[in-house]
């Protein structure tokens, strides 16, 4: 058989892009002191909870290894797994749709909803539908989508964007949530306080009507099991369960990377996911469904299998493990950069460390908009340490920086200051002789430092350093020269 190479698979579209370079967005977000306070409080609380429940499991590291291996296997045999899933899901009365990208997925879902004659849908919290911008698309087609997850509802009512994959409204505090409810809910107690129980009550009253009236629900999925054709959603509130069971039609949009080989695999992930995401031993609601069950639950069950750049990410041998992500959000909760900038600075639906690698992997790094994301990290490694499926995020960040520089090198003729610095550095640090030569100039640096032995202002890109840091006066002699003088001449 002849192999035809069709070139690089297409890049993802939709809400996967930075709206502006990360340093610029970060600069603005850093000035939002209320957001930073909310975020610091929220991320630190969840960090502590996670550490506590993870510490309870003596086999945590083994579980992480298992999670990583199962995912790697699944990705290595993705095509077979997906076809197996399609066969089993179809055999149980479900209907499978394949979507190459965001546009195709949006069109498929719109057609399915229109076929039911309904103009309203209820939604289970889902990252895939955020990624493709489904709500906005449905709106242009005259269909209203109602988010039912509490945090997602807050974001939707507040005409805001999610800033976290698990807690989309993490940047808002209770008082801000109350204000949004008072302003946006059609029927609400005007004396609503910011007590969590009261806020939940208001949301419940608001949503209950929607659940009972809805004919169509749209969900994502945490996993699909190939050997049984089962789909699963893991959640905390039970609102997802309502959507998954009450309406007549259920449409699930799921990234193709979510498929797991077999039923037994959920044993591992149901231990890894709740502990890593909400810091709970077990989440309150886990819903599993396998096709259609006569007279019980939705009678029209669809799944849209979404590529949107995943095949492309899979083709990158150094980056593909990013597809192993189970969207637990542990990496962003521990990230010192995310803690300070919040999720909006990343532009894409996927913020934080995983977003900084996943977004450019899905779209392709040569898409200029995502070029600054892989640099949005000090490479401290807290994400890798927390990740339940051991995605080496720092290594992939560095890899993608390499891809970015290579892509820019091809496009630009004029070298930047950074290019020149790196070229010069390559010569200077490429031989002991060369660095030794440069070190002869150290006394000049001492001169520049002056009396107080500090360098306080540097030009060009190095000004970024001296905006908050002094540089000490260099020594009069390098170690290399000291060694020659003291150790070798004796």
């Amino acid at each position, binding site marked *: 058989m002849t192999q035809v190479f069709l070139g690089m698979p297409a890049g993802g579209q939709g809400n996967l892009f930075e709206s502006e370079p990360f340093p610029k967005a970060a600069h603005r977000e850093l000035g939002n002191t209320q957001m930073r306070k909310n975020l610091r409080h929220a991320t630190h609380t969840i960090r502590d909870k996670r550490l506590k429940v993870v510490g309870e499991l003596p086999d945590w590291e083994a579980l992480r290894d298992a999670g990583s291996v199962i995912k790697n296997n699944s990705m290595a045999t993705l095509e077979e797994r997906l076809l197996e899933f399609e066969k089993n899901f179809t055999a149980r009365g479900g209907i499978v749709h394949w979507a190459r990208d965001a546009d195709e997925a949006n069109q498929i879902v719109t057609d399915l909803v229109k076929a039911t004659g309904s103009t309203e849908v209820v939604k289970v919290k889902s990252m895939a539908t955020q990624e493709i911008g489904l709500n906005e698309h449905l709106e242009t087609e005259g269909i209203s989508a109602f988010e039912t997850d509490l945090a997602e509802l807050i974001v939707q009512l507040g005409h805001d964007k999610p800033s976290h994959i698990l807690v989309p409204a993490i940047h808002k505090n209770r008082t801000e949530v109350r204000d949004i409810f008072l302003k946006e809910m059609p029927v609400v107690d005007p004396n609503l306080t910011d007590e969590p129980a009261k806020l939940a009550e208001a949301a419940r009253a608001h949503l209950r009507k929607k659940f009972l009236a809805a004919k169509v629900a749209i969900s994502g999925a945490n996993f699909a099991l190939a050997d049984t054709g089962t789909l699963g959603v893991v959640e905390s509130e039970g609102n997802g369960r309502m959507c998954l069971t009450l309406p007549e039609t259920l449409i699930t949009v799921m990234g193709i990377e979510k498929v797991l080989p077999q039923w037994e695999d959920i044993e591992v992930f149901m231990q890894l996911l709740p502990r890593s995401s909400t810091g709970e031993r077990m989440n309150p609601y886990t819903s599993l469904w396998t096709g259609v069950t006569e007279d019980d639950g939705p009678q029209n069950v669809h799944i849209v299998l979404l590529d949107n750049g995943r095949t492309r990410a899979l083709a990158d041998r150094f980056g593909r493990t990013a597809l192993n992500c189970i969207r637990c959000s542990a990496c962003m909760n521990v990230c010192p950069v995310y803690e300070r900038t919040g999720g909006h600075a990343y532009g894409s639906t996927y913020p934080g460390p995983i977003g900084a690698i996943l977004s450019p992997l899905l779209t392709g790094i040569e898409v200029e908009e995502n070029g600054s994301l892989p640099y*949005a990290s000090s490479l401290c490694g807290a994400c890798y340490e927390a990740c339940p499926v051991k995605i080496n995020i720092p290594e992939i960040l560095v890899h993608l920086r390499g891809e970015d520089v290579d892509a820019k090198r091809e496009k630009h003729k004029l070298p930047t200051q950074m290019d020149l610095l790196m070229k010069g550095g390559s010569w200077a640090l490429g031989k002991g002789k060369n660095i*030794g030569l440069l070190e002869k100039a150290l006394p000049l640096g001492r001169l520049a430092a002056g009396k107080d032995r500090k360098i306080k202002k540097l030009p060009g890109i190095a000004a970024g350093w001296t905006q908050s840091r002094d540089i000490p006066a260099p020594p009069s002699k390098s170690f290399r020269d000291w060694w020659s003088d003291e150790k070798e001449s004796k």
Partner: protein
Amino acid sequence: MRIALFATCIVDAMYPETAKSTVKLLERLGHEVIFPKAQACCGQMHMNSGYMPEALPVVENHINAFDTDDYDVAVAPSGSCVASVKHQHPYLADRLGKPELKERAKAVGARTYELTQLLVDVLGITNAAEQLGSYFPETITYHPSCHGMRSLGLGDRQLDLLKTVGGITVNELPEADQCCGFGGTFSIKNADVSSAMLDDKVKNICSTGASACSGGDASCLMHIGGGLSRTGAKPKTLHLADILASTMEETVSL
């Protein structure tokens, strides 16, 4: 043992005392220290900035300098540079399609140790005052640098060793495991976020009442020290090699 010192470029050029301290410590224990003159830098700055082809000569130079039978183990007073040698060098060789270089990189990486890794795991040092004669009559705090702590898995080796120095008081640093915000060129590419992280580190250090903050990476200490100096804060920074090398007779001053 015959131990090859990998000084690292920043220590060689900016903090020669730290390299001298490393030599002193190892010689005090009766080992022979050599300094392969061909060495320059691990290439981490290039790789972490995405300049892979430019990193190649730097990485190749390091591997050529250290891929010799002339020593038993190599040591560097830096967790970050050792992590780069161990993990990034094989990656770069792989990425640029150089399988032979990758194997050599792995071999060099396997014999390269961070200073406290060598002292504790290989040379069996558990009490700095008794076994190294370390004496430093100051109150310090300690920042565990990320690459040592996470990429090398140093755990509490550095802190435990510092605690056993004669005359020393070690005050615990709040939120010690939080990155200081250095991150190489991150500190200039994302200067605002880096500075915000540094701000918190500086505040935490000042809250300990220590007169110095120690650590195992000169680069992070230069960043932290630069922030302390800029805000006019009292604490200084000092590499742990300098504290361990300090003795009753020759006490390092702040």
